[in-house]
């Protein structure tokens, strides 16, 4: 049961003041313009999508327990891997950090009342819902069997499934993503409080800013591409289908022109979270702030120039292939800089292994593997062998899941007390991170080995020599599912049994910890004082309120 241990002077001592209790009834949520409520709705939506996508992944892994038909038919398997990919990419990973955590945290971190365009923000959420409904309709009617990439001409002239429905879904989801990005760019430009110069912004905001630029610039290309694809499928326009005079490789260029930058939509916000977590739980200013901020921007810009590395075997010209290879290696440098800077932040720190930090360290381990295995795929001679094998599958899961998902969960545990006003159970949180870490490696490391040995991806049946790796991977996947479920249970239980959260449980110096937990409807009574976001000496532990408070500034929020 909830105890009465509350920060004595905090805003939360008057419950009618926080955003959760300010108004009641279902409509007060559905038509809310409050960025925090929209963030929470996004969180519920994306987490639902994640568990649906994860469930499909477990079905896929179950099928691979043997190399012959086990539970599903060819067609069912093809639909499972397509929907797993499409749901995870379009409904979960792309919106997860920016739209769920970012929506909640960005304005508070900025000391602002809301985002610049609250109505557009709500519209973005409903576009997400409509896009999700299109996907679910495709799932429930004919399924979808093109792979999440919708490669032509299979998707336009052969597939018997509801490709048009799903592409319209992805098209609408694209607009949802553009709206979020546009909102964040304007908010960061125009709503920073006095004293918060660009280089006093928390790094999470830098990463969201870099992400927003990609969302706004790259996503329209996906929209146009999917419209052309739907036009070809419905009206027989010859754009990609060679039988109609089109070019299937053109589709791949269009698709990856969005979808490679989209990889950075997925990973950049995760890197931003890690910068916050490592600094807070090492109780040290982030090392090399400017290098990390600039590396986010560098990744966003270089990310536009490397899409062709998805097409090294596609039949594009050799010269183009070589140029894309060298550009691909250039994008590895800013990522390496971030890893080194995070490590240096821990040096001479005061490190505590709270759950968010456990996830952050998992991220460091897994993202390093994900990044380094990218070198094998950037190098042309080795990529020719590894392309379209399980090596690639393992590589991008280490980045997308070991990176983005793990950082997302870390960030969720970190900001959970702020969002809900409740502390979760630390012990079970740590256990969940340990299970996720071990199970993740068991799931995906064997895939590197079988990929190197020549196991192609998207295979329903496989040769007997690959079975041992598949079985290991399947066992890992079920354990991983259990770990993630445990994390979800720990968070949900905290809503009912968790201790009331203080304003600043972790001792972070960024602005969101200056308002109550959960924040009041308008976030701040008056514009907060802006200092160095990583000056950990500006906050001290206050045993009276069981919270960190600003030095010489008691109570933390109100005067």
């Amino acid at each position: 049961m909830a105890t009465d241990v509350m920060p004595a002077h905090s805003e939360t001592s008057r419950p009618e003041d926080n955003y959760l209790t300010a108004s009641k009834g279902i409509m007060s949520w559905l038509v809310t313009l409050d960025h925090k409520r929209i963030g929470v709705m996004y969180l519920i939506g994306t987490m639902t999508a994640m568990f649906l996508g994860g469930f499909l992944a477990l079905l896929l892994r179950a099928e691979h327990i043997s190399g012959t038909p086990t539970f599903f038919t060819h067609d069912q398997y093809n639909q499972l891997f397509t929907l797993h990919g499409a749901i995870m990419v379009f409904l979960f990973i792309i919106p997860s950090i920016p739209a769920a955590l970012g929506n909640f945290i960005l304005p508070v971190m900025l000391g602002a009342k809301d985002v610049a365009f609250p109505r557009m923000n709500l519209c973005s959420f409903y576009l997400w819902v409509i896009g999700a409904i299109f996907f679910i309709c495709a799932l429930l009617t004919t399924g979808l069997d093109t792979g999440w990439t919708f490669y032509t001409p299979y998707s336009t002239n052969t597939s018997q499934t509801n490709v048009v429905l799903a592409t319209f879904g992805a098209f609408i989801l694209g607009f949802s993503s553009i709206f979020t990005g546009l909102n964040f760019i304007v908010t960061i430009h125009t709503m920073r409080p006095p004293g918060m110069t660009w280089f006093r912004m928390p790094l999470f905001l830098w990463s969201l800013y870099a992400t927003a630029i990609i969302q706004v610039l790259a996503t329209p290309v996906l929209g146009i591409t999917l419209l052309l694809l739907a036009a070809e499928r419905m009206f027989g326009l010859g754009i990609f289908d060679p039988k109609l005079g089109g070019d299937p490789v053109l589709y791949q260029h269009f698709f990856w022109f969005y979808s490679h930058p989209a990889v950075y939509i997925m990973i950049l916000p995760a890197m931003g979270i890690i910068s916050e977590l490592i600094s807070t739980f090492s109780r040290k200013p982030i090392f090399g702030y400017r290098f990390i901020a600039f590396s986010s921007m560098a990744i966003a810009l270089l990310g536009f120039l490397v899409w062709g590395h998805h097409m090294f075997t596609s039949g594009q010209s050799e010269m183009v292939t070589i140029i894309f290879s060298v550009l691909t290696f250039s994008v590895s440098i800013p990522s390496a800089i971030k890893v080194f800077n995070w490590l240096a932040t821990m040096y001479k720190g005061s490190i505590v292994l709270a759950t968010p930090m456990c996830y952050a360290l998992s991220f460091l381990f897994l993202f390093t593997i994900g990044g380094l295995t990218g070198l094998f795929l950037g190098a042309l001679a080795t990529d020719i062998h590894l392309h379209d094998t399980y090596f690639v599958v393992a590589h991008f899961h280490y980045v997308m899941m070991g990176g983005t998902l793990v950082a997302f969960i870390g960030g969720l545990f970190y900001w959970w007390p702020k969002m809900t006003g409740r502390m979760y159970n630390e012990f079970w949180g740590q256990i969940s991170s340990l299970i996720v870490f071990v199970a993740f490696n068991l799931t995906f490391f064997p895939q590197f080995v079988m990929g190197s040995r020549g196991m192609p991806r998207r295979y329903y049946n496989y040769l007997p020599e690959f079975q041992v790796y598949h079985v290991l991977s399947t066992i890992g996947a079920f354990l991983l599912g259990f770990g993630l479920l445990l994390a979800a249970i720990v968070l949900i239980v905290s809503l009912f049994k968790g201790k009331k959260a203080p304003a600043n449980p972790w001792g972070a110096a960024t602005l969101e910890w200056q308002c109550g937990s959960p924040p009041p409807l308008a976030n701040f009574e008056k514009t907060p004082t802006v200092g160095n976001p990583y000056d950990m000496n500006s906050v001290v532990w206050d045993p009276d309120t069981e919270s960190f408070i600003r030095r010489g500034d008691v109570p933390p929020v109100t005067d």
Partner: protein
Amino acid sequence: MTQFWNSINPFPGQHSTFASNVDAIFYFTFWLSAFFFVAIVGFMIYFVVKYRRIEGQEPETSPSHNTTIEVAWSVIPGFLVLGIFWWGFTGYVDMRSPPSEAYEVNVIASMWQWQFKYPTGAIAKELHIPVKTPVKLIMQSKDVLHSLYIPSFRTKQDVVPGRYSGMWFEATDVGVYNLFCAEYCGQKHSDMITKVVVHPVTAEDATDEVKETFDAWMEVAADPLKGPGGVVIPLEEAGKNIVEIFQCAQCHSIDGSKKVGPSFKGNFGKEVEIAGQGKVLMDENYIRESILEPTAKIRLGYEPKMPSFKGQMKDEWIDAVIAYIKSIQ
């Protein structure tokens, strides 16, 4: 010992001239990555232990940036990855520069089978090549994207409809290796697997796995109407070989069961129902037309999915196929 090494070796055997270079780049990148990975994780664990939080004790101050160090760890990895790029690039150029005197094989990919056509007119469903000879594949797709992948040769190339794509390699060892489709191509993508049979050029190089020389194999393959040594075989048997080469059994059963197309069994000489055209007698002319112009008469209850074999199947071969179908009653 060899067995133990095989079970932990991340690669299939090296059986082309590219393979050793590709593996060398792989291992170089691997050990370089392993070094950085161990260093990063090592420091991480060391810091977590050494600088763990002790209550009431503030951390000692340390610099929040150091331009020299930061520039160093930006520039040095830059040079290392440029080295990897360069090595990968030179290896790639070799893979994409076929020697002018290479032996050419035409590859036709379709859902979900491979067909290999030789200068002699021979057609095969497995790729047969001579050892230690550069071989160039000229590839086309009849329908969607496919990708020809031979792990033991470390090479792969997409097959794109509407254009020819090419690849080349030189097998170094006699043997039988896997050939996969690596680009998702619909329902039976994972069944689009065949073999590469690398034949010895001379009889003394023969192994237990591959006994025939390439020329001996070609002599039989070039003329499915004849058996080994040029012996004439019964027409039915030749028809069976041809049905095998063209992989007709993917869609037509011989036991009466319904697949994508109607079964070969028990229909010859009978009236069959044609969609929109009433009943037609299934005779020699019907079979011939179905092979050359499959969409002219579609059996009731089936989709018009069969491709035309016009220009691929010679007249004498069609005779043999007819004889074979007649024999399945």
